[in-house]
């Protein structure tokens, strides 16, 4: 049997950057490498705050009992488990990610956690740019710290729009690319002086230096709202949270 190899698109077309270009394959490998310490580092680096932001993201998604839900770029499953609690036994949650290692951890966590409702979760290895779901299937979608890492954000938004039921929402949590100079400076200082040194202890300095590059290349709140509206969403609003360090885009189909 022959392998199905597609050329992997590089960074979005509009940019030539002074730093190295990262293709989808590089990012996939990066997330495979950080998988074993990902959860611990999230807790450490955000002083546990990420748990609050994720609960907010799930609330904004409008997920409720009995729904069919999708958590994109699910990683080790934090948002997926929260969505599972919302959906309940009659609902269904799909956690999708392109990192085998992250999904393996998510699957192990599902087994080890005691809540019976987590039986409504299924894990799928997939690409946010080519979702393996039919049109209009999901009642809500969440995406936590994923949009910034996809190589084609426009296409990711279009795919999310396609698989959402009319009237449903997507809730996208990520770092905020702030237009406030002080916030931007503080964010950069935190990455240079807290995040990267901590990651260095785990042998992952290079992987977390990528964070600064990816935020730099990310879109501002206004740009994200426009991206959603251009993809066909009828409503889009970006909320700044975590003192402006984080942002949550809410868009309705």
């Amino acid at each position, binding site marked *: 049997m022959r392998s*199905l190899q597609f050329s*992997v698109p590089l960074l979005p077309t509009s940019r030539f950057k002074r730093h190295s270009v990262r293709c989808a394959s590089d990012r996939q490998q990066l997330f495979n490498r950080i998988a074993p310490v990902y959860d611990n580092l999230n807790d450490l680096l955000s002083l546990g705050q990420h748990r609050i932001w994720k609960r907010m993201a799930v609330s904004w998604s409008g997920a409720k009992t009995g729904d069919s839900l999708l958590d994109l770029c699910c990683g080790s499953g934090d948002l997926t488990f929260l969505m599972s609690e919302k959906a309940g036994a009659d609902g269904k949650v799909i956690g999708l990610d392109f990192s085998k290692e992250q999904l393996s951890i998510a*699957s192990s966590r599902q087994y080890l956690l005691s809540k019976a409702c987590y039986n409504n979760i299924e*894990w*799928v290895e997939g690409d946010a740019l*080519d979702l*393996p779901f039919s049109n209009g299937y999901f009642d809500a979608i969440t995406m936590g710290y994923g949009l910034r890492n996809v190589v084609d954000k426009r296409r990711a938004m279009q795919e999310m729009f396609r698989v959402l039921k009319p009237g449903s929402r997507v809730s996208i949590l990520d770092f905020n690319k702030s237009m406030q100079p002080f916030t931007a400076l503080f964010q950069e200082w935190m990455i240079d002086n807290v995040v990267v040194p901590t990651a260095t202890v785990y042998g992952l300095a290079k992987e977390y230096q990528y964070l600064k590059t990816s935020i730099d290349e990310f879109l501002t709140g206004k740009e994200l709202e426009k991206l959603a509206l251009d993809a066909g969403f009828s409503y889009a609003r970006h909320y700044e949270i975590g003192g402006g360090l984080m942002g949550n885009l809410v868009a309705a189909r």
Partner: protein
Amino acid sequence: MVRLSKWLLKEAGTGVNKTLSDILVCPLSKQALRVCEEPPSLISDSIGVSFPIKDGIPCLVPTDGKILDTDDTMKHDNAADDSANNK
């Protein structure tokens, strides 16, 4: 016990549960997928590609797909013809 059984079945790679296989479509053609038991995989007949299932997790990234040789598609067609004739 139920949880453990389900987890063990997935770990054994015996495939993906029916609800999930009903939800999933080919990531490229967006057409329905056919479940194959051995090796555990999901077949997209619309484009002649097979996607593996590993440890109960369907691998549906486009580059995970393997183009099916004509022999594989012919075997499936023959099996389908036989079952139609036996009815």
